[in-house]
Structure formats: structure tokens, C-alpha cells
């Protein structure tokens, strides 16, 4: 099972629900890895959704696991891409051309969900039209508050900033604009005193 129950946290930390079908003439679905499974579950609830759906899927480490099943559902448009960055021009165009009433379904890792949500908000999609379901990896997208660099797929606390090399602890404070949690130097007051990295949520 690819679902995880996140513990209660501070108010800026995103929360996730289960995707449910909504009435609309246009559905945009963006998912990565195990998020594909959430789309399959969504369509089980309403098979008619796919006739008006544009699916953008980035399988990542799940490889072929969900691709064929998604294609079999015959979405109006389907794209399977290698990375989020590769999918981004297509995603931006879809958001730019979106009609009133577009429903957005996001599923997969927090990093994917957050980045698409940020793009959608910048494009003027109302938050009430965005649904989010977390599936798969618990990795976080982290911004280093010191150098501003983003480190993707952070699985431990603390971790090393992939840009400036500082040892950062993982906060729950989250920026929807940046689509990132905040990382802060852990040994500023006692340089070199860095506790061993612990896997998130263990």
C-alpha cells in the first residue's frame, strides 16, 4: 500500500486527502510514481472522467508499474515523461490554456504535488479546484534558508544541503509559493555537533 498517515503538524504543513471525482468538462491529472495508483483508484470511482482528462505522469522509480493501466483508461490526452522538469513546459501550457472550471488532481510525492500546486496558483487556478493525494515516498523538497538552494528528495533529518553543504534540520514550516519545507543549520550554535541522520517519520 502506498498510503501514509502523516501525524498532526503545524498549520503551514500541507495535508492530503483522497482524490474524488468532480463534475467538470476539463480534468487535469498530474502524478508521479505511486501517484499513478491514486489516479487508477480515482477512475474506479467514475470511469467517465477520462474522456475529458489530460494525464501527465512521471513514473520515476516505479517504472512500468502503472503506465499500461493508465493508458488503457484512454484519457483524452496522456503524457508519460522522464522527469518533472521535462514535463514542466507542457504542464504550464495546460494551465495557461485552462478553461473556467478546470479540476486539478495531484497525486504522488509531496515535491511533485507542491510544485504543481505552486504553478497552478501562479496561473490563477483557484485552490478550491485543486485536490491532492499523497502516495509513495515520504521524501521532502527542502529549501536551505541560508543559500536558498532547493534539495530534492530529502529522506533524513538532518541532511546536507546539496548546494552549500551546511547540515540542515528539517522543519515542518512550508511555503506553498516555493513548494518547499524549510531547512535550517543544525549546528550553528555548536559547530560540528551534528546528530546522526534519522529517516523521516521513524
Amino acid at each position, binding site marked *: 500500500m502506498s498510503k501514509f498517515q502523516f501525524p498532526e503538524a503545524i498549520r503551514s504543513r500541507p495535508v492530503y486527502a483522497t482524490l474524488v471525482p468532480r463534475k467538470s468538462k476539463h480534468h487535469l491529472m498530474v502524478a508521479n510514481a505511486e501517484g499513478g495508483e491514486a489516479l487508477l483508484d480515482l477512475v474506479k470511482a467514475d470511469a467517465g472522467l477520462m474522456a475529458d482528462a489530460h494525464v501527465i505522469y512521471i513514473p520515476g522509480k516505479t517504472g512500468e508499474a502503472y503506465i499500461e493501466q493508465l493508458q488503457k483508461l484512454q484519457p483524452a490526452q496522456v503524457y508519460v515523461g522522464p522527469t518533472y522538469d521535462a514535463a514542466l513546459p507542457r504542464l504550464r501550457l495546460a494551465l495557461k490554456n485552462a478553461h473556467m472550471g478546470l479540476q486539478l488532481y495531484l497525486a504522488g510525492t509531496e515535491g511533485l504535488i507542491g510544485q504543481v500546486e505552486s504553478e497552478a496558483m501562479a496561473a490563477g487556478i483557484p485552490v478550491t479546484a485543486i485536490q491532492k493525494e499523497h502516495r509513495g515516498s515520504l521524501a521532502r523538497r527542502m529549501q536551505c534558508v541560508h543559500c536558498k538552494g532547493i534539495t530534492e528528495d530529502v529522506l533524513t533529518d538532518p541532511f546536507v544541503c546539496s548546494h552549500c553543504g551546511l547540515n540542515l534540520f528539517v522543519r*515542518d514550516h*512550508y511555503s506553498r509559493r516555493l513548494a518547499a519545507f524549510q531547512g535550517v543549520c543544525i549546528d550553528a550554535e555548536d559547530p560540528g555537533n551534528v546528530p546522526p541522520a534519522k529517516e523521516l517519520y521513524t
Partner: protein
Amino acid sequence: MNIKFNDETFRDDYTFHNSDWAIQRFPFPFHEDHYMYAVNMEQHRGGPEGSVYEKRFDVDEHYVAEMRDRAMVLADDPLRCQSLPHMELAGWDLLELIMVSKSEDYPDLFELHRNGDHWRWVNKPLGIDDSFTFMDETTLPYGPMEYITRQTQGDFALLDQREENLWMDAGIVTTQADWSLDFDIGMNFFEWHAPVPLAHEKGIFVRALKFLLNVQQGAPGRRLNWTMTVNPLLDTSPENYHKWGIQKSSLTPDNVGQKQYLRVELQTFFRLPRSNGLVFPIRCYLISLEDIVTIPKWGRRLHRVIRDLPVELATYKGFIDNRPMILDYLSKFDDGSETSPGVWPDPQLEKG
């Protein structure tokens, strides 16, 4: 009024100092011997003569040096001043509010001459005399918010009001108690306060937001907040925490009186007329423990407040490790006698 501006620094050699005048008018934030979050807001309609509450935007002896420090912070990190595109009108609102207030409240320091949209602004302490067209950004060296807040003490958050919430969509932040504008910009009231412990559970933010959504033009509000800072460092930013955090480890029983500062924020809230935004100036006042204890009531009270503060708050405010040392120092100035209600010193009670 005749203010003598200090030549002083808030970094490196830390020559910052408070005169007797500045100590006497310090906004001591504790009206009783203990502290817990509350919706401690009141109207901002002046205050006792000479106090920091008297004017809409208090100017004190640190003005020129603080503006010099702000310019240095912005040169190092321009992301400390940001404005989302829809906030420019609120920036003009703010420029007008500050120019009108300061020229009326301190006519010997600031002048505003208006002829239709043609404005001339004279800032004598900083040696500025600029003419520009109101609402025409191309006639100023910076955007309106940045222009005027480079000349006004305190951080500024410009809040947009929509969806029954406030959104921090612009600001200039160089004297902050460890929060990042670059990270928080675009957040709503509950999101940017998310890291504060205990207050959400007490319903503080729900009530505070209600108050703020209803602030009317011409009826500003204010409150105090506080924390502790080692050295008179204005820019305690998360951005630079990996550089200044080590200073917290430099306290010793011999230097704690000089190096440990109480940091008080005078937060005010003004409704802006054109944008219907809200501006939220956050003005920082610093005072060393050894200066606080020259007011016996404040020394006694601060000792009791710090001693009894819940661990969560001492941790959040970043002085949990130094609390024992701070208490050792302050306890020498607490003889156990009663303190009078309210924040003001008791000169008549404190002789001898």
C-alpha cells in the same frame, strides 16, 4: 524635540548603546510578573509624552545608524525586500502614510510639500531632498515601499486582505526575530504564524485575525512582542543564523549583563486607504540586561518572567540554553519585593 543621533553599529564591534533617555522610554513589555500569549492589542492613538507610543512612527537616537545597517543588509541580500506584483498600490499607500505622519509629527526633521501629484520629500537626518510624482514609480530610485522604508526604522509587512484572511504579499525585513520574508511571502495569517507554539491552541490567532480584519482607516492598533538576543544584533535573520548563532555560545557569567539583550517589538497596524491592505510595522528596540536593571521594578519583574516562562516559549525564543545564566544574573536584582501593576517605572517608590 532635539534628537542627537548615535554613531553606532549593530554588528562586528557592536557600539550600539542606549542613552539614559532611551532607557527611560524603553517599551518594557511586561505589565505583570509573568507572561503568556494574549491578544494584547490596543488602539495606537498616541501615548505619554516622550514615550515610544506618542508618535505614529517613533524616531529615536538610533535612527541614522539603523538605516545604515538596513542598507548593508539589503546590499548583502536583496531578497529581504520583496513585493508581489499586486502590492504596488499598497506600497504607495504606505509611502503616503509615513511621509504625512513623519512630516506632521517631526516637522523639524521631515518635510512633505505636495502640489497635486508633484511631491517633494525632505529627510534632514539622512540628507535626502527628493522630488517625485506620486504614483509614478519611475520617478523614485526604488519602488515606493522600499524607498520609504529605507528611511523608516522597523520592519514592514504589507498585507493584502482577501478571503477573510490576511496575506503577507510584500515586505522589508532586516531587523527580524528570526523569520524569513523570502520564505513566508505569499502566506496567509495562520501559515506564517504556524511555527509559534501554544498560541494556536489558545485561539490567539483566530481572535487576532478578527481584530486585524476590522482595523479601520485612521484607527490604527498596536501590541508588543519580545524575545532575547545576544549582542545588539538587529539582523537576527534565519538567512544568516549559521553566522550569528555562535554568538549565543559566547555568554559568560561575567559578560551576560552587557551582552544579553531584551528585544522588544512594537507592532502597529494601519489600514491603507487605496489598496484596503494593512501595513504591519514591526519596530525593534534593544536593551541590555545591565541597562534594564537600572530600573529596579523592571529588573525584578524580568527575573520573574524569565524564571517562570514555559519551556516551549524559552525554546521557541531561542534562549533555553542560556536561561540559567540569565537568571543567575537577574536574581541579584530581585529582592522579592512587590512590583506595581503596569509597565511604567516607579521612580517615587524606587529611591533608596
